[in-house]
């Protein structure tokens, strides 16, 4: 059963066509990378999937439901979570508090004006689990705004994971990171994919990361789909080399 089916979507901003008739099918358990030069429309494509804005045309089907016009929070409830190119966290709260909010939302408690002891215990247990998984245990009570870029990114990924998503969308998870941080975040993503069989779609600039992680790769250029295939196929593809790889490598 297909998890995400994006059918022939386009997005226009005035006269600019940011994404032009792009389709994508993601199967459960897959790790899909979306690559392309700057301005290829990758983030716009992501924003349509996650509900930042609707496509100008085309449909998006998630888990057999047409979510094309759904608002973002409803997509989250349906099992979709995302991170942003520029980390979006709650900088003045601690790591634990940052994670606590999505944990409570996922437990269906977001409107609850009280919390029973039993619920509180369950939430704390889940928090400890997430903190350990993200390697954030020792920093749990520090303000996220004071942490390194890599730890902030790990917090953001764990916040998305706290929602128990069936599809995780990562927008340039290693953007602006040094080698060690890139390595740590890559390892975290691979762990989530391998251990939890989580379906992940990510945009990435770092080709080492892409070829290391992805099952399949989709290449966008100037808003349109240029190629799609396994990492080997993409590496050999001459159009891709011409349009993209040749320029940067």
């Amino acid at each position, binding site marked *: 059963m297909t998890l995400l089916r994006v059918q022939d979507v386009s997005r226009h901003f005035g006269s600019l066509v940011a994404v032009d008739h792009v389709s994508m099918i993601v199967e459960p358990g897959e790790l899909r990378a979306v690559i392309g030069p700057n301005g290829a429309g990758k983030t716009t494509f992501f924003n349509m999937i996650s509900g930042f804005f609707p496509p100008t045309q085309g449909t998006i089907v998630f888990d057999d439901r047409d979510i094309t016009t759904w608002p973002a929070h*409803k997509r989250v409830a349906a099992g979709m979570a995302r991170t942003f190119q520029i980390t979006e966290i709650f900088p003045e709260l601690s790591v634990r508090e940052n994670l606590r909010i999505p944990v409570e939302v996922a437990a269906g408690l977001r409107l609850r*004006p009280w919390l029973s002891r039993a619920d509180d215990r369950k939430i704390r247990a889940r928090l400890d689990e997430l903190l350990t998984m993200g390697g954030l245990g020792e920093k749990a009570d520090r303000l996220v705004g004071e942490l390194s870029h890599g730890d902030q990114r790990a917090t953001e990924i764990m916040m998305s994971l706290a929602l128990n998503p069936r599809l995780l969308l990562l927008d340039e998870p290693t953007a602006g990171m040094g080698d060690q941080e890139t390595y740590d975040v890559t390892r975290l993503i691979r762990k989530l994919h391998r251990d939890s069989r989580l379906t992940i779609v990510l945009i990435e600039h770092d080709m080492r990361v892409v070829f290391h992680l992805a099952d399949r790769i989709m290449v966008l250029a100037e808003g349109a789909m240029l190629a799609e295939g396994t990492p080997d196929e993409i590496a050999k593809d001459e159009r891709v080399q011409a349009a993209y790889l040749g320029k940067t490598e």
Partner: protein
Amino acid sequence: MARDKLVWHGLLWLVLLTMPYWMNAVGGYTELAVRVIVLGLAAMALNFLLGFTGVLSFGHAAYFGLGAYGAAMAIKFALPSTPFAILVGVIAGTLAAAVIAALIVKLRGVYFAMVTIAFGQVFYFIAFRWNSVTGGDDGLTGWRRQPLHLGSATLDIAANDKAFYYLVLAFFILAVAAMGLLLRSPLGRTLIAIRENERRARFLGIPVEQHIWIAFVISGFFAALAGTFYALLSNFTDPRSLHWTLSGNFVIMAVLGGMRSFWGPLIGAAIFVVLQDYVSSHTENWMSIIGLFFVLVVTFFPRGVLGFIKRRVAS
């Protein structure tokens, strides 16, 4: 740190519980003490929205004033009962907050603030113009708060200032406890999430508009509660209790005391009310003194008086 908190809370409650007994000695009077906690409650209600949801309303006098008019008109036209007056005032203010919030939750920032002012002024002009019902500019007189009948006992809040003070304080404690508990609940944490980063909150599955609406209604509810006591305090209300300058004063109180602190607005209200009372007996231009004080606080202690004290104690 924990001990400092204990000392601070002990001091706060000691002051609140004994205020009527020493107000006269320091040149105040019981009515002034009531004004401090009533306006303090209104400022804390506003701050539930401003400081903890990150949404600036410049029209909270509307809900405060509707609470006041609701209470006054309930006694004058319907039933001479204080609990009934409080109930009517709170329902009127909360309903208005619920309707107005539903119309404006999609707006943000300065647009949101402007529209809250505009809606607030609608009620002001109704109260101002509708002479036959509201008493117009002269205000609504010819009614009094009524003694409370509790089974066989009677609490004479009508004649006894101190009894009225403690009634208001009891409601203040309930209201503040409710707001404090709400902020420590999952719902409260979603509001802080919206304040901290609206986009992140939205993409964590929080329908931001719905939650801002809830915060607005809760805030309007407590502002209306404060408004009912404001009218009951002086057995009088007039259109100024609905005017946007009062909304502005609530904002000033919150910022003055420290809008990131739970108790900050109460401290701000105390400073505001006492300064107003003291300075206005010397000069008509009391507002310029408060204005100057406000500018100094905002410039030198951006986290307000309480924020400044907290930082001092911590370091």
